[in-house]
């Protein structure tokens, strides 16, 4: 499919009233301004791309010009390729030949630009046949204001040639008739480089048919293997592979409406039908969707996409429809929708699970009660809040408080990253707080003697007098973990105390570092901070109102959690 006047069509769409006036885009090439693209009226007056602007003005003083914007054209082309996803999931933008990229100052031949590939294998019957598909494509694009030439053939090369050089705007090459159909077309339809074309022209060769009739060995020798390869690709003797723009999802269901549809209820009903189709297909292969992408194709404009994820492989249309319910409304303002497609880019084998036998007192088992209802809830919450916001806490083999728990997917079986079932367990009752401050907050604490719990401490400007205390519980850091990841005070040995203040509040506090060897504040690590400590007397002297400067090696206390 080829859009011969894309740059000027892009401009004309912004100003529909002036569509009939001659218009050209201009760009500097070889030291002067040249036309890069012309619209229909300008073409009719004899202007052509590559013509110097001065010549064009001489021919047509009324010519309007605009700067050539290749980036905008490319973006529009990509958008159109997405739009073409309504016909086939396999679309690709034709990339310019490397030579054009190397010398952007030159005006590339118009035929080499602004093409879109569509692989409609197996899609045409959805539109009433190949001819109807082509007609529909052309009609819709024309209604949007784009001149388009499209051809459908068995090989990409033949379609390319027929689209550029065919005698009609839409050409349908009959199966098996490529050679005959291409024979009268000019050699330029073979995507050859300029040198090869020149050489062939000097030999008096004009048509593809003439070239195809020549002996191949001589051709390859005189004009290079590329020429022969292009000919073979066009005629279907050699394969040609083109990478699609987006990965083609393995599972897709689509629906097209005869009239644009805008009512949310209708869209939802259509979506339900799509889900039923897709889920039936997935179920037949014993797979379930983990991720679904819905694409809505409005009559005019860019497709709108949304995606949902699920917590486990699913093939339940009602469940999936409820997940989409949150996502649909923002997509529905604007024009009516005239086609929808539903893709499942990520599926997993869905093995029907045997219902677990209830075991008495099995508190650690994964949730067994009605997993379908719970799964729906988890998916709904996860799709709105974010997948990482709906979790379950699982224990981790670590005595370091911050590392003792980790978050897991709420419905997954308890597993480690390595895939082994975790065997970590939770500590005994009462030993750990209910809430853990992260990070621990520094407090000013006063302890009468080394290795004794503090008598009072100040946290967030409030003084707490300790009524009862328990401890210490000494926890050494995990030296085998990355030591530079935490600040020095956070990777020192800790003495934890459980404190209760006079009001009955219960706290979990710790002193960072050993009493006579507090962690250095400058990041050199606690191994260097040796020597005799005089912190005991000084911290007693500073007393309750101690915003006074502390000695650098005074013990540092932190509040880390709250007990019930």
């Amino acid at each position, binding site marked *: 499919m080829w859009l011969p006047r894309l740059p000027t069509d892009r401009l004309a769409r912004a100003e529909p009233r002036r569509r009939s006036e001659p218009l050209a885009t201009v760009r500097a090439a070889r030291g002067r301004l040249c036309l890069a693209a012309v619209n229909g009226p300008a073409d009719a007056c004899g202007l052509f791309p590559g013509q110097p602007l001065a010549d064009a003005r001489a021919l047509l003083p009324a010519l309007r010009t605009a700067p050539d914007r290749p980036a905008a054209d490319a973006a529009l082309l990509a958008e159109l390729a997405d739009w073409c996803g309504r016909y086939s999931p396999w679309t690709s933008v034709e990339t310019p030949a490397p030579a054009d990229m190397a010398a952007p100052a030159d005006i590339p031949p118009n035929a080499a630009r602004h093409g879109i590939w569509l692989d409609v294998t197996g899609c045409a019957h959805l539109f009433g046949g190949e001819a109807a598909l082509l007609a529909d494509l052309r009609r819709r694009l024309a209604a949007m204001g784009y001149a388009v030439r499209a051809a459908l053939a068995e090989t990409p090369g033949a379609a390319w040639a027929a689209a550029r050089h065919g005698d009609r705007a839409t050409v349908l090459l009959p199966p098996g008739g490529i050679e005959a159909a291409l024979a009268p077309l000019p050699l330029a339809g073979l995507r050859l480089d300029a040198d090869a074309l020149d050489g062939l022209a000097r030999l008096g060769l004009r048509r593809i048919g003439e070239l195809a009739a020549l002996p191949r060995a001589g051709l390859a020798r005189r004009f290079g293997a590329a020429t022969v390869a292009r000919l073979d690709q066009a005629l279907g003797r050699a394969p040609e592979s083109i990478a699609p723009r987006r990965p083609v999802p393995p599972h897709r269901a689509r629906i097209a409406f005869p009239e644009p549809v805008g009512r949310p209820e209708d869209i939802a009903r259509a979506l339900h039908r799509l889900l039923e189709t897709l889920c039936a297909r997935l179920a037949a292969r014993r797979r379930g969707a983990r991720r679904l992408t819905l694409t809505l194709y409005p009559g005019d404009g860019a497709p709108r996409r949304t995606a949902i994820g699920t917590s486990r492989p699913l093939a339940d249309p009602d469940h999936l429809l409820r997940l989409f319910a949150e996502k649909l409304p923002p997509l529905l303002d604007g024009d009516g929708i005239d086609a929808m497609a539903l893709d499942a880019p990520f599926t997993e084998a869905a093995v029907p699970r045997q219902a677990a036998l209830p075991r008495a007192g099995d*508190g*650690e*088992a*994964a*949730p067994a*009660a*009605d997993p379908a*209802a*719970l799964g*729906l*809830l988890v998916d709904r*919450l996860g799709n709105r*809040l974010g997948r990482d*916001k*709906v*979790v*379950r*806490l*699982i*224990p981790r083999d670590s005595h370091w*408080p911050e590392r*003792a*728990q980790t*978050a897991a997917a*709420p419905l997954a079986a*308890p597993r480690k990253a390595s895939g082994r079932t975790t065997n970590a367990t*939770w*500590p005994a*009752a*009462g*030993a750990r*707080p*209910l*809430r*853990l*401050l*992260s*990070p621990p907050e520094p407090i000013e604490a006063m302890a009468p003697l080394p290795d004794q*719990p503090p*008598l009072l401490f100040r946290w967030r400007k409030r003084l707490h*007098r300790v*009524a*009862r*205390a*328990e*401890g210490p*519980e000494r926890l050494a850091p995990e030296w085998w973990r990355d030591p530079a990841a935490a600040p020095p005070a956070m990777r020192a040995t800790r003495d934890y*105390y*459980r404190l*209760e203040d*006079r*009001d*009955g*509040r*219960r*706290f979990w506090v710790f002193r960072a570092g050993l009493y006579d060897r507090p962690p250095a504040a400058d990041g050199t690590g606690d191994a260097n901070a040796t020597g005799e400590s005089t912190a005991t007397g000084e911290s007693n002297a500073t007393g309750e109102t101690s915003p006074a400067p502390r000695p650098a090696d005074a013990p540092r206390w932190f509040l880390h*959690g*709250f*007990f*019930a």
Partner: protein
Amino acid sequence: MPRAASSSSLPPAAGPLPAGGGAGMTGTPPAARPGAAHSGAARPGAGAGAGASVGSERPGLAGLRARIARIEGGGGSGGAAPAAGRVLPLGAPELDAALPGGGLALGRLHEIAATDDGAGAGFAAALLARLMAARAAPVLWCQNLSLSANAPLYGPGFAGFGLAPARLVLVLARNDVETLWVLEEALRCPALGAALGEVGRCDLTATRRLQLAAETGGGTAFLLRPPGAALAPTAAATRWRVGALPGPPAAGVGGAEDARWRAELLRCRGGAPDEWPMEWHHETRRFRVAAAPADGPAGTGRAAPAV
């Protein structure tokens, strides 16, 4: 949309009750029951007159309460005084006697106002642990990051309360609005036993929605209000205020026996306000009324370290 449908029925219908539903346990004379139910259904505003006629037959207070409960209570569940299978006994006779039906009503909204972070979380965790043990269903805890972003739940502590973190779905919401949405969604889900949300500000309408959602799904709703939250009127069946309680000087701190609170029942539909010093026993997962409320700090101000 189910949401629209349920909110249209928002004024709780004092409507037709299932015959005998909920009236049996309150001790209302059988003769008075149909009449009371009928007048309540027809003209809720004329309740006082009908109530007086019922009260003239018997001591009457219970009958009156039952009628008020029926008028106030939600549509399908049969009154605020719930049937015996629809309550969660707290395990302490003194507490259960003060609650209508002998425990905390399931499928209702309960509000816990914490005066202290640890105490509120602990009391809520204890309630959820009891509920999890009774119903064998997972529960959901919606943490509100605008209130407690730097003090996340700590699984080891929760596990100590008997609240298996494996069956606790933890949701992190950004603010009150999201928390209320999560709660409503969760309560509509029949697979969950209970849903708790940390909510700073909420109004009567929001709590009514939660109440309706809880009736739909059958789960029990808990609102955990942070210290200092403004306690506007809500549709909650009970409202608790939970604060720290100093323990006896001899006991350890934060040990297995040592979760205790001063729990005030500020408001209770169908019951009277009260206040208890309360203890939680980790092993049996029961509440207890603490033996002797410790008055003030221990004499010396500090006990010797126990370990």
